């Protein structure tokens, strides 16, 4: 049978190359889509793990602050803990490179004598230089090459508004230690780093190497007991696992989206196998008559599908790699902006992930082919050798399937949305159930087309109306397209709603005329501060009516790391800049000012189950404390959560400190853009980022769009697969229904009419897919907006229908469907009337 399989496979390829190419394309795009997201997920975690490994190296434990930072004074206590062999104090921060090209350095200040594992080149590194040479820094050779820097070259960076001159002291290949670590890693002496960051006496972490034979778990407990509640001790694995937890929603979201493409690719395999089996019935009937078992027939069909899966996977692996590379920048920006994680600089494809890609491709092919394969294997030789069945299931069966699928969706909805049930992954199950029910509705929709009035002439409308005559194959194409369109519509509505919500939020909360921050702010956040002289200067600027200060730091609240921001809650000009959910902003701000209360962001409130009237537990430098919660405010800047307090409260609880940002309210009539230019010129020695209200909004929205770039790529891939499904279906129809075309040609239909008929079929499939997909997409959008976003990301979104985007997408799908129909339409129009044969209709 194996020999026969090889011969039959070759014959199949010769007989239906176009169909196979389309099916392979479907699998390739599906595998590519799913794989690209897994590559990005792994690369994101790899970048974080690489950074941990490069910085902490052999250390088994890291002492980390629960508040903003650790005091220097803690180091002797760590060293003095029994079982600790050595302790390496560290400062970590982001510094902006002061050059027209921009960019940032991931600065690590460490005890370079203790960190002897760093591969410093003895030829270049004078052992005393890191301490003796002001601004001495070790960079990666990759970055030095990219920037054209050599050992000894000066480079200017900024941390906050302070500009500092560094010197390339050594080139160190950190990536040899940790291949996924950042090429932007810059290592310098801890004291120099503290000076650079203006954080004297403060540390980001203390790495601990345990004595031989000491259990790290036991040592961790000992350290926590000795150092008190202001610190936590974690292993590198725990830290990576925390990053995984932080990214869980983001990763699951993209994974679910990418699997839609694989699902749609499976439809293409199904359609191809169906078409192939329709042609091979007689061949399989002969084989069965000659003694082939049902299992052998099943094996023949599944083997054929496995070849499709393998070919698709072979193309899908590089495609996934390329798609991941194309999305690298936008995903990396999202991870840094939304989660304050490391940038992803390169994509990795470990062997197990390639194996997963192969498995996905084969699984897609198997799932797509098992139904038709079992069906044909069950038939007896006589049935296989008889004339082909009409291929029209009973309407009752279609109703049962559709009602069953929607019944499952309704049951999942009841389980997800029922009272007291808030298991977050159920939202994804509901989305899958809604999208999964869509294709089962396609046969009913097609049957409804039969009731349409007969068109006036033979052409596109006739072709579209007659789709129900080929229910089986067409329903698959309509279903596949509907799933892709459902995803397209669902995501578009969700993104449009999100965008509109953010635009309104920005409109409500960005009240100042000019915003002043520093180039390193976007990466360093609380570590990037404005010097007090800058604030003084801003207050003295002509036309500045009021300066609204913001101080930000990171601390643990309700068991998670969140940003804690201090604002001047009593500033009269700042009214309205905080959108308190449920209203009562004035009273909430009064409580911030008078009672030292806190406002918690919506994501934190949802995830930690905190609300107005509750109490928020925060970790300060000297231990935990509690603040009354004055309300919940809208925030779309940090998924992990944020807390807002009055500046006085922040100073009282965390000690005095510099501000990070300033917002300026100008005298009426002043041009903010002119003021921006004036301020930029007023502080020549400072690293400042000065933006008008309008520019800041534009930039925020641009970041927003970039965040969803990878989503758009996934949407595009799913639609391409589905549109390929239209070509495939029409090619199958052109071949299988050649008799009908020949009859029409015999009755006097011109080639043009046949061309139009097939174009109509393609557009009909697209229109039905759009209609069904729109309905499914509306359901998906509701699930995304009302269930998944609040449960996973914590923010509420107002539903908004972006009609322009939806109309554009519908036009693109129709245009793509028309383009996809051209080849089959041309092929069908060339069918001669002599093709009419006994089995033709």
């Amino acid at each position, binding site marked *: 049978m194996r020999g026969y399989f090889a011969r039959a496979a070759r014959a199949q390829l010769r007989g239906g190359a176009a169909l196979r190419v389309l099916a392979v394309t479907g699998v390739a795009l599906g595998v590519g889509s799913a794989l690209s997201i897994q590559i990005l997920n792994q690369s994101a975690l790899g970048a974080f793990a690489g950074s941990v490994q490069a910085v902490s190296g052999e250390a088994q434990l890291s002492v980390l602050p629960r508040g903003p930072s650790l005091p220097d004074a803690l180091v002797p206590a760590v060293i003095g803990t029994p079982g600790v062999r050595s302790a390496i104090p560290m400062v970590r921060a982001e510094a902006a490179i002061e050059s027209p090209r921009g960019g940032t350095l991931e600065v690590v200040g460490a005890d370079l004598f203790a960190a002897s594992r760093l591969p410093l080149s003895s030829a270049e590194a004078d052992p005393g230089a890191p301490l003796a040479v002001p601004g001495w820094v070790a960079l990666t050779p990759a970055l030095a090459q990219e920037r054209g820097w050599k050992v000894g070259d000066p480079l200017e960076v900024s941390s906050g508004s302070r500009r500092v001159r560094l010197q390339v002291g050594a080139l160190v290949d950190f990536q040899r230690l940790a291949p996924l670590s950042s090429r932007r890693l810059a290592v310098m002496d801890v004291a120099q780093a503290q000076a650079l960051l203006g954080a004297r006496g403060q540390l980001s972490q203390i790495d601990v190497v345990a004595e031989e034979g000491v259990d790290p778990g036991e040592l961790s407990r000992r350290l926590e007991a000795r150092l008190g509640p202001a610190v936590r001790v974690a292993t590198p694995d725990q830290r990576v696992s925390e990053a995984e937890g932080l990214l869980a929603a983001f990763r699951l979201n993209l994974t679910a989206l990418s699997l839609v493409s694989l699902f749609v690719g499976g439809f293409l395999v199904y359609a191809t196998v169906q078409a192939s089996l329709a042609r091979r019935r007689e061949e399989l009937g002969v084989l069965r008559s000659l003694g082939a078992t049902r299992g052998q027939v099943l094996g023949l069909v599944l083997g054929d599908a496995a070849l499709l899966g393998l070919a698709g996977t072979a193309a899908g692996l590089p495609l996934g790699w390329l798609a991941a590379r194309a999305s690298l920048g936008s995903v990396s920006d999202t991870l840094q902006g939304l989660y304050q994680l490391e940038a992803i600089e390169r994509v990795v494809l470990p062997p197990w992930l390639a194996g997963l890609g192969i498995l996905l491709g084969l699984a897609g092919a198997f799932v797509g082919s098992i139904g038709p394969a079992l069906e044909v294997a069950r038939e007896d030789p006589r049935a296989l050798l008889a004339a082909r069945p009409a291929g029209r299931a009973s309407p009752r069966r279609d109703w049962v399937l559709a009602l069953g699928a929607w019944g499952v969706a309704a049951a999942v909805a009841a389980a997800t949305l029922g009272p007291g049930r808030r298991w977050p992954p159920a939202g994804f199950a509901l989305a899958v159930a809604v999208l999964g029910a869509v294709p089962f509705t396609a046969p009913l929709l097609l049957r409804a087309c039969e009731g349409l009035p007969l068109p*006036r002439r*033979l052409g596109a409308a006739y072709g579209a109306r007659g789709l129900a005559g080929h229910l089986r194959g067409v329903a698959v194409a309509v279903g596949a397209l509907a799933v892709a369109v459902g995803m397209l519509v669902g995501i578009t509505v969700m993104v449009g709603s999100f965008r509109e919500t953010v635009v309104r939020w920005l409109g409500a909360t960005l009240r100042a005329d000019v915003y002043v921050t520093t180039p390193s702010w976007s990466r360093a956040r609380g570590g990037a501060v404005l010097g007090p002289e800058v604030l003084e200067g801003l207050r003295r600027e002509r036309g500045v009516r009021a300066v609204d200060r913001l101080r930000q730091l990171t601390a643990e609240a309700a068991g998670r790391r969140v940003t804690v921001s201090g604002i001047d809650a009593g500033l009269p000009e700042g009214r309205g800049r905080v959108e308190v959910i449920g209203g009562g902003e004035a009273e909430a701000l009064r409580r911030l000012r008078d009672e030292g209360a806190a406002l918690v962001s919506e994501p934190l409130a949802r995830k930690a189950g905190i609300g107005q009237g509750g109490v928020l537990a925060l970790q300060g430098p000297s231990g935990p404390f509690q603040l009354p919660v004055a309300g919940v405010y809208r925030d779309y800047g940090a998924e992990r959560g944020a807390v807002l307090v009055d500046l006085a409260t922040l100073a009282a609880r965390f000690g005095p400190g510099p501000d990070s940002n300033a917002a300026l309210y100008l005298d009426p009539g002043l041009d903010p853009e002119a003021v921006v230019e004036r301020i930029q010129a007023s502080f020549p020695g400072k690293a400042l980022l000065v933006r008008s209200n309008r520019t800041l909004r534009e930039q925020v929205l641009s970041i927003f769009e970039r965040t969803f770039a990878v989503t758009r790529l996934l949407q595009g891939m799913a639609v391409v697969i589905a549109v390929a499904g239209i070509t495939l279906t029409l090619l199958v129809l052109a071949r299988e229904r050649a008799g009908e075309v020949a*009859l029409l*040609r015999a009755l*006097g239909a011109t*080639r043009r*009419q046949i061309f139009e008929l097939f174009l109509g079929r393609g557009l009909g499939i697209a229109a039905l897919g759009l209609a069904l997909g729109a309905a499914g997409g509306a359901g998906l959008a509701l699930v995304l907006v009302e269930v998944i976003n609040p449960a996973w990301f914590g923010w509420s979104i107002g539903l908004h229908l972006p009609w322009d985007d939806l109309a554009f997408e519908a036009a693109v799908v129709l245009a793509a469907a028309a383009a996809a129909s051209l080849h089959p339409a041309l092929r069908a129009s060339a069918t001669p009337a*002599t093709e009419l044969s006994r089995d*033709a*209709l």
Partner: protein
Amino acid sequence: MSDVPTLAFQDVHKAYALPGGQPIEALRGVSLAVTGPRAVSLIGRSGSGKSTFLHLAAGIDAPTRGTVRLMGRDLGALSDRERTLLRRDAVGLVFQFFHLLPHLSVEENVLVPALVAGDDLAAQRSRVRELLGEVGLEDRAAQPVQKLSGGEMQRVALCRALLRRPRLVLADEPTGNLDEASGQAVMDLLLRLVRREGTALVYVTHSRELAALADETWRLHSGLLEPA
């Protein structure tokens, strides 16, 4: 009545190339003229060239040599589109296996030639009812064709062939897929209808009895046409 023959074959040859073999000649110098509303039958064994003759007569296929004229127009001199439009407007076709479109109703199947031609469907519907009445299927108009018997299907096909009042009906074994009684009934109907409509008819059959119902009968034998 014009003297121009409705259909004229003049020294028509048709050869097919077999893969890897010699060309096979299906028709060898066939000449025939059908003028006016006459019924002409063709008999012959399988492979004698009967279907090839009908394909050439309908302009579906082109002769290797010789001339086929339909309504006085040389089909060989016409483009594919011109031949198609001439066939649409002048010829009605009846097939052995009916070739009805399974996703259309009885009435819609009869209307297909009008759809192809872009006729006014409202006007043609009364013609459809008239024809279905003639063949006794007026009460089945809205039914799916799959629910009809073989004889009924062929009666629908007759209506379809006659809908646009063609000058020539070509029928390829119209009773070949029917039992004897149904076949006789269909043939009687066909002849009655074409005679009433004043349409020329060329039909192919295996049955000498049915062939004898025509005004003239010809026999095709190894590609040659001779009086039966």
